[in-house]
């Protein structure tokens, strides 16, 4: 059943992204070059709705959170390396599958690269675990926890911040 839910969720996700026209290299790299913000608009809008929905259903006890462990070393080093790869390929892992579906065959080269990267990571994992992931390792923590405030305060603040970004995007016609 879990497999079917995964497939259906993926199909809906791919359908929405294709219809919003953000699966092309031009839209993806256009966002990274800060000349066309459609990709960021979609992502940040999803985060606002996601955060409100997730914490609403968390508060009423319907769902559980699944936080990823914080490792400042892992997220900073890995994040920057990922960013370089994202710009070179032009598609992130989930987007590359959608881009291929839309006909961007170059995404397939990227996906082969990801398989290779996965194998390489398995080789270098012991080193990374010992020297990089161990830096600033704080476990599964959320922003409201470390700030010591209610999560809705953080959600409102995040929403305002993102709405300000949207106003800037629209004013600059990005």
């Amino acid at each position: 059943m879990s497999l079917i839910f995964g497939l259906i969720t993926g199909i809906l996700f791919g359908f929405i992204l294709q219809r919003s026209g953000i699966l092309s290299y031009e839209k993806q790299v256009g966002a990274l070059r800060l000349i066309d913000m459609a990709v960021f608009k979609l992502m940040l809008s999803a985060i606002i709705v996601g955060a409100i929905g997730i914490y609403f259903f968390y508060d009423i006890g319907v769902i559980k959170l699944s936080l990823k462990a914080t490792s400042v070393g892992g997220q900073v080093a890995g994040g920057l390396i990922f960013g370089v790869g994202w710009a070179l390929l032009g598609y992130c892992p989930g987007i590359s599958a959608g881009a291929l579906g839309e006909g961007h065959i170059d995404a397939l080269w990227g996906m082969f690269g990801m398989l290779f990267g996965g194998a390489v990571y398995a080789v270098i994992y012991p080193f990374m675990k010992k020297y990089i992931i161990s830096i600033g390792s704080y476990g599964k923590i959320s922003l409201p926890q470390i700030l010591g405030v209610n999560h809705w305060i953080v959600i409102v603040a995040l929403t305002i911040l993102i709405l300000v970004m949207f106003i800037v995007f629209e004013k600059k016609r990005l």
Partner: protein
Amino acid sequence: MKNKTWNPYLAGALVGILLVLSVIVAGKYLGASTTFARAASVIEKSVGIDYSQFEYFTTKKGKYGPGSLPNWQLMYVIGIAIGAFAAARFSGTFKAETVPPMWKKKFGSSRIKRGVVAFTGGALGLIGARLAGGCPTGHGLSGLSQLSVSGFIALACFAIGAVITAKLLYRDRRG
């Protein structure tokens, strides 16, 4: 054929609703990058490489090893390709393309050049995503929706690395 694209804010809201529904119905937060690491272990196993020599594929009871597939996330990634293909065909926007126009304008029409850079980017992207513990979907969308500290740090670094690299790639070389 109706080719008008959906408003990105509305499409984003739909993605947010999809995330929430997925967590309610299947208990699954969205993410994609781990599938490629898991698939690498499946390939190693199938071509006779002893994958168990790598701690990553055996750690956490084989969470990232070949025994973890097929799973929810693999089907999710396959679904994305199917959903995008279906939407592209229905809307008449499917178009096979080997070299993106923006790339072609700057770096020429060589498929090999584009393929090599795309492969390198994919490899770096996956190494970075696994080191960070997620990709823009897992850390960005799912992580920020949960207000996870890891998500904020990762998404900021994804953006910094990507924006700087994209600016360097497409900088004006006349100066």
